[in-house]
């Protein structure tokens, strides 16, 4: 067991997967010689050569389209989109091609590929470096979508994603690449290397897709969340002293409905938390599932806490971003109902 950052854990997952299976190839903008602008692919080109890890032209459509073709050939492409905000030019290849290939050919052609992309705000990235587009993926049939919140999960989920026979979207919350984020932008970042959740077993098994993790057990209410917001929820529980159960979904599709039901039936109250904009966000799906499956256990309506329905503003990140204060307030209000 070692402590490492999420970036190092992602490097390790690539390394393990590439060593194990020479069909795994890694490409994207700046990922080759330089190892990616966030360094998630550092060292791979040197170790595995230029035909297994290489730089691409700045063409997201090219990256995804080529990956679809390569996967159809029998490779396992694991590609990086530099920021999630830049996947829109490739969206057609993701939605109409990668996600549909198995279905439309009745399994004759398949698309075992992984698309990694940094998501989320809190790094002063303004509108085009901060988006959380998970709802745009979870709405698409044929894709799986995962969001890690710890280095060990980032490694374990990426390994499963690469092994998966279908296209998997891995959304990496960049605010927690180097350390957890407790929602307080004015506090220094504690490196994962000094944080208990930064522990990673570099020989460990993959983490199965579709399984949530309970980050904090509690009786008063359930917070359903993922990614950066897991840490904000933990901070809110600590700061309010409310005995919240915090469920880290880890995989958004397929989602771990059993764990959701277990937790909400136990606590009877539920908050759904994400930093993506509220309206028609992934949270709406969670609320729907909870009301359908836990209606008779609920003691109060399910509450959503999310980013506002505006683009991400550079100067106002900390008003935009749900912090522990907003989450804590929602928790308190929910307990009064």
């Amino acid at each position, binding site marked *: 067991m070692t402590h490492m950052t999420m970036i190092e854990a992602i490097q390790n997952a690539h390394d393990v997967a590439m060593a194990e299976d020479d069909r795994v190839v890694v490409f994207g903008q*700046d990922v080759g010689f330089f190892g990616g602008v966030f360094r998630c692919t550092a060292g791979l080109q040197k170790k595995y050569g230029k035909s297994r890890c290489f730089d691409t032209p700045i063409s997201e459509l090219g990256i995804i389209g080529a990956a679809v073709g390569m996967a159809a050939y029998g490779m396992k492409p694991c590609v990086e989109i530099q920021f999630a905000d830049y996947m829109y030019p490739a969206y057609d290849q993701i939605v109409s091609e990668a996600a549909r290939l198995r279905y439309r050919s009745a399994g004759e052609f398949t698309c075992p590929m992984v698309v990694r992309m940094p998501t989320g705000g809190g790094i002063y990235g303004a509108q085009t470096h901060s988006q959380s587009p998970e709802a745009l993926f979870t709405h698409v049939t044929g894709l799986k979508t995962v969001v890690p919140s710890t280095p060990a999960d980032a490694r374990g989920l990426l390994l499963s994603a690469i092994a998966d026979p279908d296209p998997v979207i891995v959304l990496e919350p960049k605010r927690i690449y180097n350390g957890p984020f407790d929602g307080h932008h004015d506090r220094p970042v504690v490196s994962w290397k000094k944080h208990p959740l930064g522990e990673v077993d570099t020989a460990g098994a993959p983490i199965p897709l579709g399984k949530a993790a309970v980050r904090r057990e509690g009786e008063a209410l359930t917070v359903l969340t993922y990614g950066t917001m897991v840490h904000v929820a933990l901070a809110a529980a600590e700061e309010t002293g409310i005995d919240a159960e915090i469920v880290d979904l880890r995989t958004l599709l397929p989602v771990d409905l059993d764990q959701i039901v277990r937790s909400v039936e136990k606590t009877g109250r539920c908050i759904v938390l994400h930093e993506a904009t509220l309206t028609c966000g992934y949270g709406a799906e969670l609320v729907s599932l909870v009301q359908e499956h836990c209606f008779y256990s609920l003691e109060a309506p399910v509450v959503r806490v999310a980013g506002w329905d505006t683009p991400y503003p*550079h100067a106002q990140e900390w008003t935009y971003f749900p912090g522990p204060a907003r989450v804590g307030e929602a928790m308190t209000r929910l307990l009064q109902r």
Partner: protein
Amino acid sequence: MATTFATPPPGASPAPLTLNVPEPEFRPGDTPDFSNAVIPRAGTVRRPPVDVDPQEIRDLAFTIIRVLNRKGEAVGEWAEALDPDVLRKGLRDMLTLRAYDARMMKAQRQGKTSFYMQHLGEEAVSCAFQGALARGDMNFPTYRQAGLLISSGYPLMKMMCQVYSNDGDTARGRQLPVFYSSKEHGFFSISGNLATQYIQAVGWAMGSAIRGDTKIAAAWIGEGATAENDFHAALVFASTYKAPVILNVVNNQWAISTFQGIARGGSGTFAARGLGFGIPALRVDGNDYLAVLAVARWAAERARRNLGPTLVEYVTYRAGGHSTSDDPTAYRPKEESNAWPLGDPVLRLKAHLVAIGEWSDERHVQAEAEAHDTVVSAQREAEAIGTLMSGNLPSPRDMFEDVYAEMPPHLKRQRQESGY
């Protein structure tokens, strides 16, 4: 029935295939040597009439138009008779941009803002180009064309307020630093998504043509971003509708860590991208203020005379980092920018002005000091309003404005909920 395939044609190679991944010539640790680079002498490339048949100038997509020679003389058919005041203004614009960059880089390091992108080595491209435009024309810039604003007289103070996201920022703190916008100064609001502006410039120009207007548009892109779909869509539309647009490609050799050969593929040059579309394409020395201005005027005249689009590739070098988040020594030799054979655009224009007796070393030192002072006093004014870290930012209330022309009820509710 069994599937049958034709036998391989005779001579087909049974050898395994390999993937070609281009590499730059020099990496950290190598000594950069550009002595083999083919750079024509200044003044040797012909100047065709603006209504030339594009087929007759295909060669101009593969050479480099240059005006200033080593002695600082303006030579050849592209050398225009220019008022020395125009040249002095050009030099001052470039000095101002350089001083502005230096101050803003420092401000970022001091934590006054989150991010900055500088123009070091590429100042001539945007500063000279603006000289070809008229009031009402529209640039669709990317993030390394602040020279367009500076040479059109846009206030430095307002640019800094944008960089600081303070209460004086006309974009209300919403955009990343350097993502300026000024309709009045013909500077379209910048997007962080590369290349999207390219086809929009063509659309704007088509609008001007549809309305029988006289305005033209200029599209801007880096060589790396030409790999994006939007670039190709722009070429198709511009060529089909003969839109009055100048399609600029700034080839500064590097796209973050990725050298220009990755985006270029086998085409030889970025200008050559225009040829398949029948668009006249020119390559110009981007560090030669006079050459940039002359080529920009040529292309602008074509657009104004309804002769259609021109593709221009500016050959230059990004001497600084990609942004304040980048360390270029990780992927290219430190000495590469000094070894770059087209020199420094500021020093080259200075040498020309000295050569024609319109400038001196003393005046240059003085002009540098003036540029510095202008920038510093603008900075003082901007910082008196606030910086990203020191406060006096636009009100969080503002965050909810401009999502729509009229704020819908759900946003009003959210604004109230946010406490503003």
